[in-house]
């Protein structure tokens, strides 16, 4: 069996199911939670909240800044153009290019981090139900041990599951 899950109408019921599974000996990391909206204030939806995304954005910004400095300064040295008495490497004007590329670096680094850390694009998961798109919250366990299956289903049912689904 690939997995078993319950669908819940409210976050309260989903939290009860989550607690029930934990009580049945399922580690929090093995519980699948899917929802059609962020529910970060609930414990069941608070997994994986540590991220280095802001630091990677800063790193991307630094990379953009360095690239822009090198692009402008090296270009101006290799092809010197005298413009209005400004120095050949004109940092006052180059700051504009550096600023834009710094911000661009931060934005691109953020998006790449999002895609990598959220595993996008990804294949369809083992546990999924289109009812999630209708606002239901899916709580389930992928590839459960057969001896724990009964306890898992009991925990999902006692939390007022709208429906219990099995994926085989």
């Amino acid at each position, binding site marked *: 069996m690939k997995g078993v899950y319950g669908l819940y109408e409210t976050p309260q019921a989903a939290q009860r199911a989550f607690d029930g599974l934990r009580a049945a000996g399922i580690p929090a990391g093995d519980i*699948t*939670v*899917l*929802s*059609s*909206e*962020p*529910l*970060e204030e609930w414990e*069941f*939806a608070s*997994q*994986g*909240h540590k*991220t280095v*995304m*802001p630091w990677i*954005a800063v790193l991307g910004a630094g990379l953009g800044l360095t690239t822009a400095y090198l*692009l*402008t300064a090296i*270009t*101006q040295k*290799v*092809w010197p*153009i005298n*413009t*209005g008495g*400004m120095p050949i490497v*004109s940092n006052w*004007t*180059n700051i*504009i*290019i550096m*600023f*834009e*590329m710094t*911000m*661009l670096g*931060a*934005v691109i680094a*953020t*998006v790449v*981090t*999002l*895609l990598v*850390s*959220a*595993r*996008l*694009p*990804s*294949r*369809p*998961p083992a546990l*999924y139900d*289109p009812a*999630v*798109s*209708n*606002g239901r919250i899916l709580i389930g366990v992928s590839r459960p041990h057969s001896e724990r299956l009964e306890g898992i289903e009991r925990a999902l049912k006692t939390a007022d599951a709208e429906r219990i689904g099995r994926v085989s």
Partner: protein
Amino acid sequence: MADRLAADLLRPVFQTSRSYFALVGLLAGIVLCGIAAWGYQVYYGFGVTGYNWPVYWAFHETNFVFWIGISHAGTLISAILRLVNATWRRPVTRCAEVITAFALMIGAMFPLIHLGRPWLAFYLIPYPSERGIWPNYRSPLVWDFFAINTYLLSSLLFLALPMIPDFAMIRDRATGWRQKIYSWLCLGWQGTPKQWHRLESAMHIMALAILPIAVSVHTIVSFDFSMAVVPMWHSTIFGPYFVAGAIFSGIAALIVVMSILRKALHLENYLLPLHFENLGKLLLLMSLLWGYFVFNERLTAWYGNSPHEMNVFWSTQSGEYSPLFWTMVLFNFVIPFPLLAIRKLRSISTAVFASCCVVVGMWLERFLIIVPSLARKSTPYSWGTYSPEWPEIIIMIASFATMALLYALVSKLVPIISIWELKGGKQPGLQAAASVHEAETAGELL
């Protein structure tokens, strides 16, 4: 309630009326006329336009600055409201972000349209050139290239990322080829807590990054003028003046677009009077700020009494451009101010009327910044005048049609209000939809 939300907001994606096809056909026809006018201009040269010595920047540049200004509606407003966690923003943000993306694309077309040989536009791109000519990084036009492309890419990403969960929602409801397309577009989105958290974090970081980018873009557009020693252009106030004007025209455009969407897509339960009132207050604030900048700019020029500047100054105050100048003041300040400031006069209709005035007024403002200064440059023997010919006028009309066409097309592909954001915020739109649903359910039971 979630079903009701999705049904209301996804209806335009799944249902298409005949009038929609008629509208798209009409708009596409106007856009084709614009392309033909551009082709005519390229084939016969700029002699067919009103461009003539000494006015070589006119309608196309006005449209360029105008559309870049309009682009400040979306991402900037959306980013600010996201950062201050204004919950009422949720139905508004995507409408606004779509404006940004399309207005930037349209605005960025005008420098190309203005080129006599548009196929040489790649000269702006920094690449190792066998001609030995590299872009001059001291040129404001090269700054434009970097700024506009950075803003465009950031805005497209800022618009596209929150669409992913909504694409997943459409995937789960669609069938056949549509399901395949949306399965691809949603990148396999599942809605795990980790994915939601990463998406929210990314949106927050991007909002922080996009604010200074947006400010820099219109400042750099203002540098196209203020870096030149041309009367009434060479001004230190131009940066913030342009940014304020851009936000002003952007909010006005957003209100107009929202009112059209509200009627056309039947979004009365989501785009509420509250949204128009709040945006109307922002518009009022920007009208005052705009008035303040105009007064500052004009007073400084008048007080300095430099003959070069006064020639331009009087041509706009009482000379040949004065009808346009006073119409601009009327449309940007005199009409919107009472309509938006007096509580009894505030309504959706008055906000939309004031916004329409502001859109026209801000277009005139861009024209008045560009043309009179070139027509009345330092020495009287180089004075001239400008009046547009039909190619410029048709291209301008086509730019508005392009905006409408792109908006019509995108409203078929994605819900124009972000469903997951609306669900996530316990905000008025959702409550209104819920109350309507409850009332209807009660009616059915009775």
